């Protein structure tokens, strides 16, 4: 209706817009626009909600199966909501069961789920994950960060144009290929040159995971370092700072949020990696005996779940224990995320007060 009126007005030589009409039309005046805008917003909301719901559903599914490991509903006393004593007894039984199972899972180091008397001590597996992730980060973060600084500030632009795509190709290599490399090339090399008895160990897995995390860290850090822009760097040079001072005291603090995001992304890659650790870490469910000896074989949570899930019958104790380990893995990931967010918050508050 409004369009036709505008066209007529133009033909009669008047202004293109009708200045007597209000800017915001009521639904009655522009029904199509009203419905369109609300339908569009609903559609976009649905799309966003789908991804959030997917994450929530993953949590619900894992927690439901893992909870069955911690609490056996049949073993609890009968619950009668009307009686306070019965409710108390039920809650107490449930909590103590959860506590006992959690202590067994986190305190025991013996993982023998298929034995005649199954033992579900996942501490050695948790420690294995920690060793492998920690080792990978210890290698990947300095190397990745220095490579990013080098690419953005030191090497000529032409070098950056060739090197960056090459580094990103590393990220595209499938993890099985890395696993083969680890078992067939790196393990014998370590046995020969480092004179250790077994080449598939925590160090092997840590090195390969570092190689997988480095492209992510380099790529995202380098992007954020470049995004700092010339003005800040030129201002720093104008104040008389040397190249090193500019990089360390101006550019890197200015890009710190991007750098921490890069480290988090690289860490996520290292924690969740399954195929590589399954092949390269040796899968021995032990805590290395001098605790700093990374050249001993360890087992990670991801490899345990991947290696044992295929065979276990659904609903058995072993199956639920694997889901409990999955829950541990989620908790571990969350905890690491929170720690890095805390650091991000601290650095932001301390260093970026003006932002």
């Amino acid at each position, binding site marked *: 209706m409004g369009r036709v009126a505008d066209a007529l007005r133009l033909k009669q030589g008047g202004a293109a817009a009708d200045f007597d009409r209000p800017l915001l039309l009521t639904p009655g005046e522009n029904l199509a626009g009203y419905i369109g805008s609300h339908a569009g917003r609903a559609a976009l909301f649905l799309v966003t909600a789908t991804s959030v719901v997917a994450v929530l559903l993953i949590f619900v599914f894992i927690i439901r199966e893992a909870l069955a490991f911690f609490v056996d509903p049949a073993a609890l006393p009968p619950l009668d909501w009307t009686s306070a004593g019965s409710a108390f007894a039920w809650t107490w039984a449930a909590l103590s069961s959860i506590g006992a199972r959690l202590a067994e899972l986190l305190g025991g180091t*013996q993982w023998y789920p298929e034995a005649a008397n199954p033992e579900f001590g996942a501490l050695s597996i948790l420690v294995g994950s920690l060793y492998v992730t920690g080792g990978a980060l210890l290698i990947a973060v300095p190397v990745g960060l220095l490579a990013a600084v080098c690419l953005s500030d030191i090497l000529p632009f032409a070098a950056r144009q060739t090197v960056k795509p090459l580094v990103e190709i590393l990220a595209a290599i499938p993890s099985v290929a890395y696993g083969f490399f680890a078992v*067939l090339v790196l393990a014998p090399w370590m046995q020969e040159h480092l004179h250790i*008895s077994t080449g598939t160990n925590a160090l092997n897995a840590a090195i390969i995971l570092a190689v997988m995390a480095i492209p992510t860290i380099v790529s995202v850090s380098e992007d954020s370092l470049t995004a700092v822009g010339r003005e800040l760097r030129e201002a720093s040079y104008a104040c008389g700072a040397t190249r090193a001072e500019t990089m360390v005291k101006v550019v890197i603090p200015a890009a710190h949020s991007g750098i921490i995001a890069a480290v988090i992304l690289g860490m996520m890659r290292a924690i969740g990696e399954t195929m590589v650790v399954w092949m390269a870490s040796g899968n021995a469910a032990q805590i290395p005996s001098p605790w700093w000896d990374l050249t001993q074989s360890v087992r990670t949570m991801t490899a345990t779940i991947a290696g044992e899930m295929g065979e276990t019958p659904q609903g058995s104790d072993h199956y639920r224990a694997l889901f409990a380990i999955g829950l541990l893995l989620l908790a571990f990931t969350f905890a690491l995320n929170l720690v890095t967010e805390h650091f991000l918050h601290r650095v932001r508050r301390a260093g970026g007060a003006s932002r």
Partner: protein
Amino acid sequence: MERKRKMSGTEMVLVTTGIAALMAVAACFAMGAETQKQTLQIEGSTTVGPIAEAFAEAFMKANPKVQITVKATGSGDGAAALIDGRCQIATMSRFMKDTEFQKAVEKKVLPALHTIAMDGVCPVVHPSNPLKAITRSQLRDICSGKIANWKDLGGPDMPIVVISRDTSSGTYEVFAEKVMGKDKMSEKVEYVNSNPQAHARVKTTAGAIGYVGLGFLDTSVKALTVDGVAPSRKTIATGVYPISRPLFFFTNGYPELGTTLHAFCTFYLTEKGQEIIEAKGFIPMTSY
């Protein structure tokens, strides 16, 4: 020149629907053409996998209308797939566990057995290892961690690296049943997830001891004699070798006579089938 008119919204919707309908019809025709071929799905053990694949190749060459796919991820996976109805043949290197059997019967699947070949699980060490013979009790002590250094067995002063198959493998089950008995594996034992990987680890690690199926023995690893019996065709076929086992095809009930499934399940009795089994390094069931 006349400006091309942009398609209005309604026209856009009609065109999209038309293209989608055409694609759906084309997909239906393609699917219809595919169902002319008969399919056979085989899942299960990584030990029996190579035999099943070679059988499938020979069978498909003889009968071009049959499409056979073989998946080898573990005996347990094969049993689970047969119970769920996802495959017609489950290749397994061990008999079904009682839990699996019960689950199958609950789901109205009656597992029928075909013993297609014999296999020996052979302990292997690195070629540089001077050890030649071992007893089952020594093997058990090594795996449970009581013997930790090769010098306790007359070898060089090197720590023993034990390579075992992961617990979902049929090879592991046989080893655990025949050698370990009630003893648990030491926590220092390393796990790998396939025969070729165990072979690769022992080949490259001087202090390693592992176990592989007879079909995976070659000159790059050294096979040990167990309780004085060397692993070979004769000793395994006659059951003299202590760590030997039959290899199975499981089907849902005995296959109907004359069907493709029946022909495939009795392929091991034919001359071609036995040649394939021997070529893969296993021992055929017949012995004339």
